[in-house]
């Protein structure tokens, strides 16, 4: 079996999780920022 097949499969699954978790972090930060009172 071509070792590239395994490498790319693992990369595809890892990249999916990384992109989702990065976006989730952005959403959580935005959610918390919207809760904070505005500075005057």
């Amino acid at each position: 079996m071509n070792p590239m097949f395994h490498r790319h499969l693992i990369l595809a699954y890892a990249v999916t999780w990384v992109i989702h978790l990065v976006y989730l972090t952005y959403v959580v930060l935005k959610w918390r920022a919207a809760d904070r009172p505005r500075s005057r």
Partner: protein
Amino acid sequence: MKLLRWLWLALTLAVLANGFRVAMFVVPVDQAQGEISRILYYHVPSWCGMAVFFAVNLICSITYLALRNRNQGRALKADALAVASAEMGVVYCLIGMTTGSLWARAAWGIWWTWDARLTTTLVLWLIYVAYLLVRRFTVGPEMRTLAAVIAIFGYLDVPIVYMSTRWWRTQHPAPVFFGGPNTGVDPSMMPALWWNLAGWLAWGIFVVSLRYAAECRQQQADRRAAHAALEAV
């Protein structure tokens, strides 16, 4: 509401964990492609997620335009859901293109090709990125109206992406699902697809609900700030 959200997240992670187990260790590999075919179980749910959330964005954009002068409260809620679903759609589209590129490198020997499916998908992603940039860098009351109009025009590319492998001869494989006789994957591979489809759609709903709540909070904060500024005059 908070408890429901945590329960939903726990259920989603359980479904995704089982989806991973079934995809990697239970279902057989495609005989022609071998191990690399397992990318299908993350690649296809990403496209389904993109289609679902861009459709939600379209419905919310139309709702916003229809209600903006009659019922501003509901119109703003529709707008909040529109931006949340557009962001989620862009994320799914990016994942679909990235996993597809990794699959293409292993299967075809190339990272990218300018065929109809890939090009129309890239254009779709750019349209929705432009939609988000307009929302980010435009100020004033017309921003939401302008964004809603862009969203409606942007969605026109979704059916073109879907039909591209039927209308044109492409490097991308012919339709695997709903492509007529002699298409589709082996039934033994379907459980992995269903589990991951359910898991990633549930994940999308969870994240969109959080983003929607954040946008509603932001709208309330903006309204309070505008009200305070008016009172100060």
